């Protein structure tokens, strides 16, 4: 593989792994705190799934770099500084209330479903295989989150207003998912990665009617200035928590 293609692919795989790992971590913060026991179990399941998906992408990233696929993901998650993470900043925002976390999960689930469906046809066989495997789990995520978006949107005055507040806060960040990395054009050219503009078109066609029918008004938001290489202040706080034990005991093993 040519070097610039390899670098581009490594960067994209890292971004996909980081998306899943950071969202999975934010979701896991609900463990023991969800509004009802059944939802606590459901959301913990989703958090675990996302972290599992991160491992899949990280493993492909590691293989490409000639690193150990089993141990390298830990290095990536526990020993990188904030500036090296490549997820969409949308996913690092604090978990907020239940409406915020549920809506963010839905926005991402739908993005991921569209992305995975297209990646299933990727010219890179490892990516295509992983996309098919991960896509099977995303069917359930999407069903769970879209069910709740609909119910909270159409529920009480309070649930609707919380959802609307969440949507107003999240919507400026959604474009972060679709902004290409510098090497993406190379990957799109050789059919490894779909055109992110196409992903966005499919995503919007699905998400807009669902939100509107859930009695939520889609804001005319100005896109955030944050990107996969320019994060909010919340990432550092998140990593303080996530990496706390490793920083205290750098040589610890478990």
């Amino acid at each position, binding site marked *: 593989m040519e070097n610039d293609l390899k670098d581009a692919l490594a960067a994209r795989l890292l971004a996909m792994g980081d998306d899943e790992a950071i969202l999975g971590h934010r979701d896991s913060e609900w463990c023991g705190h969800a509004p*009802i*026991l*059944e*939802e606590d*179990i*459901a959301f913990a*399941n989703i958090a675990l799934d996302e972290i*599992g998906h991160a491992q899949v992408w990280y493993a492909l990233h590691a293989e490409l770099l000639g690193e150990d696929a089993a141990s390298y993901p830990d290095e990536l998650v526990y020993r990188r500084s904030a500036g090296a993470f490549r997820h969409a900043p949308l996913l690092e925002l604090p978990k907020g209330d239940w409406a915020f976390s549920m809506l963010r999960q839905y926005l991402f689930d739908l993005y991921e479903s569209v992305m995975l469906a297209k990646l299933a046809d990727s010219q890179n066989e490892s990516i295509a295989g992983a996309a098919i*495997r991960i896509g*099977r*789990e995303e*069917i*359930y995520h999407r*069903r*769970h989150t879209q*069910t*709740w978006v609909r*119910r909270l949107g159409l529920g009480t005055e309070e649930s609707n207003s919380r959802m609307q507040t969440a949507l107003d806060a999240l919507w400026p960040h959604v474009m972060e998912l679709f902004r290409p990395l510098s090497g993406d054009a190379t990957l799109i050219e050789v059919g490894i990665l779909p055109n992110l503009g196409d992903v966005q078109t499919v995503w919007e066609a699905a998400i807009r009617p669902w939100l509107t029918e859930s009695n939520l008004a889609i804001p005319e938001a100005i896109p955030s200035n944050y990107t996969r290489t320019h994060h909010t202040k919340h990432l550092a706080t998140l990593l303080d928590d996530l990496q706390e034990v490793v920083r205290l005991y750098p040589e610890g093993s478990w």
Partner: protein
Amino acid sequence: MPDTQWPEYVVFQQDKPERVHHYAGGVHAPDAEVALLNARDVFVRRPECISLWVVRRDLIFGATSEEISLDPNWFTQFEVPEGRIEKYAVFQKHGPRGVHEYTGTVEGRSSRDALRAALTVYANQDVTVWWVTPEEAIRRSTSDDIAALFAIAETKFYRDEGQYRTQEALRKIKAMRDKEQSSHGE
């Protein structure tokens, strides 16, 4: 204490095509669709399952064989409403350790009426507790649900709790602490 949570739904699970649906437990949910998703999360992540039914617990009418046999008027003294005839699903529990299993359907004008019909149809069976519920009250998973709800559990990698060896680790930590404490005492 009153239950301030959402209504409780009883969950019935089918493990294999040749097996009947059996009682799995209960979940709270605001409606049947969410109950089905919650049932999947609580009961189906690990074991094999091909179908789930959920039904609101307050729509299940139950009676033990003992209370029926002790009441000489059980079969006769109750009012049957004029209403339409409905189909009811019948569940039987055999013995104190058994769980309710789907038995079949009967028709009735009320739950009590349906249970009387069930007692007649399944008269010679050794049943500990009977349940009947209107067929219409049951939300069933469909073949469209298989991919989203059940198929993923088959291929999912997971560890049983024993594989984490936390007990072993805790014993080691405790032994270390005991040793430290005894050396401090010296």
